């Protein structure tokens, strides 16, 4: 165990000085880490310990120490280093460890969380679990939460449909909501969960299989002066044939019984045929008992009661759904479309952060017969490795700037989504990108227009007026609703083709 280099062995004896061997080992270990120190021994000089020192070539030949004496031995590269190490070791005997207060461990599991909720005096039990972990584990955690009687908001995606069906059945049996998977928006008892706008509380109950769809409808209701009693998310697949609307049905049961809910709107992509039949008949039942219902099924043909679906208003756009629902609640939402501007040559490019807003745009443009490219930048193919563009707007800003250099593009359609969960200032990156793209286009004599709507409310953390001002100052044409923005674009295209 001899070091190949020339080394010195120094020792220091503290007479009649006792420290526990563990304390001494810790001091030795700390001292050994010093630069130039090869090995440190810190022991009570008992015969056994002297033997241990000897075995490792660490016993000073002239050591004069008894069992009750503490001895430090340092092998180091130089006398000075050794002396400093001995000083440090001795100082370590009296050093006071800075000891913070004991940090209570945070609960790590659902069961521990349920327990922790009750830990304080007079604390109320936990009643909802928000789950946004990897989809592999989400069903396991959700099942534990359901067993604990918790409602679930499951933001996680990549949950197998079999798991979704099983968990929703378990939830219904346990009398709790399973909102999700891939459910980004809910407002329960006025509490916003996930990506939700700050809307007034009121008497419209919402059941939504779509996140930004629910946001657009709820914020338009708010604009019309209509509040929401509950906004229950059910996950995008709930009305598929596989899931069969299990959670939509459960949510409708809740809202039908709720005295605080006077009208109901269901927001979804069009349900699968079998599910639609059952659902419409369920909705008709609710309507026939005096609680009016709007089925806002994106892309479906509008229909009013007393024709195809007695008792249920069907609307194929978010805006239409919001207007119809506001009307049933005794309020009118007047959407004033923008005056047309001089037609813009070039194609339409939609750069959306909200998936359902992108879908609504596609539907309206398709109906208008306008060729377009509408991108949902929240889709997996664009987000790989990056946060959702509603959280991190930079990814879309890059796309806007790219479009500035694309001579085929004439008009760019945008959404700006506010509310909890969303970026604190989504408008500024859009505004900066818009100005950069426009100056790029104008530098080659091209005209490039930007049309947007802001999905938000005055009470949102970002503040809708502040966000709109930022966009307007950048020259973005602002419509009141997503649908209105899209109609404006469609009108320009019609004009452009006509001219």
């Amino acid at each position, binding site marked *: *165990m001899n070091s190949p280099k020339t080394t010195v062995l120094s020792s220091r004896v503290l007479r009649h000085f006792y420290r*526990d061997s*563990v*304390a001494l*080992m*810790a001091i030795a*270990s700390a001292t050994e880490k010093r630069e130039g120190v090869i090995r440190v*021994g810190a*022991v009570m000089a008992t015969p056994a310990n002297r*033997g*241990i*020192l000897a*075995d*490792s070539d660490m016993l000073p030949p002239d050591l004069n120490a008894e069992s009750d004496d503490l001895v430090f031995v340092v092998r180091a590269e130089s006398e000075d280093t050794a002396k400093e190490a001995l000083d440090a070791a001795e100082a370590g005997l009296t050093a006071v460890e800075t*000891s*913070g207060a*004991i940090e209570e*461990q*945070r*609960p*790590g*599991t*659902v*069961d*521990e*969380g*349920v327990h*922790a*909720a009750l830990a304080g005096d007079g*604390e*109320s*039990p*936990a*009643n*909802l*679990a*928000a*789950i*946004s*972990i*990897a989809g592999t584990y989400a069903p*396991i*955690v959700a*099942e*534990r*939460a359901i067993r604990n009687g918790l409602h679930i*908001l499951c*933001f*996680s995606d990549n949950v197998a449909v079999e798991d979704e069906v099983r968990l929703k059945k378990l939830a219904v049996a346990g009398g709790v*909501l399973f909102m999700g998977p891939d459910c980004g928006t809910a407002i329960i*008892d006025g*509490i*916003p969960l996930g990506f939700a706008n*700050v809307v007034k509380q009121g008497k419209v109950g919402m059941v939504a299989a779509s996140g930004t769809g629910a946001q657009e409808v709820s914020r338009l209701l708010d604009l019309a002066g209509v509040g929401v*009693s*509950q906004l229950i998310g059910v996950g995008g697949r709930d009305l598929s044939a596989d899931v069969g609307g299990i959670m939509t049905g459960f949510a409708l049961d809740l809202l039908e019984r709720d*005295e*605080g809910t006077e009208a109901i709107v269901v927001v979804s992509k069009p349900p699968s045929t079998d599910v639609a039949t059952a659902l419409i008949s369920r909705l008709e039942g609710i309507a026939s008992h005096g609680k009016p219902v709007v089925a806002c099924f994106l892309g479906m043909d509008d229909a009013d009661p007393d024709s195809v679906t007695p008792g249920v208003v069907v609307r194929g756009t978010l805006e239409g759904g919001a207007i119809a629902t506001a009307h049933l609640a005794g309020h009118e939402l007047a959407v004033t479309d923008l005056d047309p501007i001089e037609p813009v040559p070039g194609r339409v490019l939609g750069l959306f952060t909200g998936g359902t807003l992108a879908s609504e745009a596609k539907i309206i443009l398709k109906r208008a017969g306008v060729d377009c490219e509408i991108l949902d930048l929240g889709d997996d193919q664009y987000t790989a490795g990056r946060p959702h563009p509603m*959280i991190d707007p930079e990814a879309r800003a890059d796309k806007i700037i790219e479009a500035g250099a694309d001579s085929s593009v004439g008009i760019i359609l945008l959404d700006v989504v506010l509310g909890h*969960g969303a970026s604190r200032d989504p408008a500024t990156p859009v505004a900066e990108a818009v100005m950069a793209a426009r100056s790029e286009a104008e530098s080659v004599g091209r005209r490039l227009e930007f049309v947007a709507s802001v999905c938000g409310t005055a009470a949102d953390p970002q503040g809708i007026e502040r966000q709109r001002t930022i966009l307007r100052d950048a020259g973005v044409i602002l419509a009141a609703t997503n649908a209105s923005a899209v109609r404006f674009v469609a009108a320009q295209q019609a004009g452009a083709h006509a001219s």
Partner: protein
Amino acid sequence: MTILEPVARIINVGLPLIVEGVPAADVIQLDWRPPAFGEADVARLALILDDDVTADANARAITAVHSVRPQLTRVRPAKEVVPGIADGRTLLHAGPPIEWERMCGPMRGALIGATLFEGWAETPDQAEALLDRGEITVDPCHHHGAVGPMAGVLAPSMPVFVATDPSDGRLAFASLNEGLGKVLRFGAFDDEVITRLSWMRDVLGPILDRALEAFGPIDITSLIGQALSMGDEGHNRNVAATSLLTRRLAPTIAAMEPSSDAIAVLEFLAGNDHFALNVSMASAKLSMDAAVGMENSTLVTAMARNGVEFGLRVAGSGAEWFTTTVGPADGLFFPGYGPDDANPDLGDSAITETLGLGGFAMAASPAITQFVGGNPDDAIAATKSMRRITLGPHPAFPLPPINFAGTPSGIDVLKVLDTGVLPLINTGIAHKLAGVGQIGAGIVTAPPEVFLQAARSLANRRGIS
């Protein structure tokens, strides 16, 4: 209608962003990690296993364990009391089963020493040859109701502590602790070692047995309980329990003839701070055995290391071992030694943690808290973290620093998988070469793999897939 009665209290598993609109006081943010160490299939099995059947079985199992009040009744030659080793040539060792060929240095050295001690060979070479040829049966202590620290080698002529369950007469055994330095349990087998073992056989064992016969059985639970309030944790610090045991027996021993032997025994006890460790181990073994074979229970009944593998046994899977390769403990080393010298983790002494002593009772033992980072606060945190994986506090082992709450006791495989928290084990570190001895001490955690295996096996037994 409000859905969240009486007021919203939200457990958030994942991104804080999701609940940013919720008043912070109403959010319980979890420090979540993937269950079952990221093995989603096992996490699912564990979830299915976590039902009323398991809960009932675990309640029965932990009640059985906590009801045992082991008595130290005798110190007898192993061959008289330990089942299955009286005839032929059998030596017992620590940990799960392992063949001679794969054994680590210290365990091989200890088996050579035990062979010499039994007089089955004249020289170490002869002893090794006998073992090479398989002429000596080697078997785990745990298969014979026994436990041994480090190499844990138990030979038929060695005296053993006999721990007795007064309620049903069950027995458990542990070897007698030889002290520190050159000792068999670290693989030393020179004359000094054999001479000491002979003295333990001829003098120490018989005198202790006579003393116990005269004094009467000693209640080990109360002995350990008292020691926990005196700074022991029942595994790596045993000075209080040893002192208490010695104090009880000393007057009886002092009166024995020849007085030179009595004095030698008392001197031996006075010079061995770890003497009571083996008593603690026998007691823990007897307690945990009360749950062995408890159908459907996910309670851990044994953790043991053989210097190559870590082994786990669970109540509901009876005698089955779940094993995986282990590395050396990370810890503090005696002067002149470091991690490169360390043998992979070794010994049956983790039976103490299985019951809730040792690493689980760290809060009780300020003197050795440096192993967990330096101060008593860390020790309290260590003990509290073990609450997350145990079935309940041990009623007879209150720990003063946590307001006399019982030490966390009874490791539940399902809780380990759900929390990802691994059992903490206080351990001595052996040199990897036979006979060098103890070179340090520290903390290890049980390896995750054995808990995954256990969950698969338990699920399989219940037809869950």
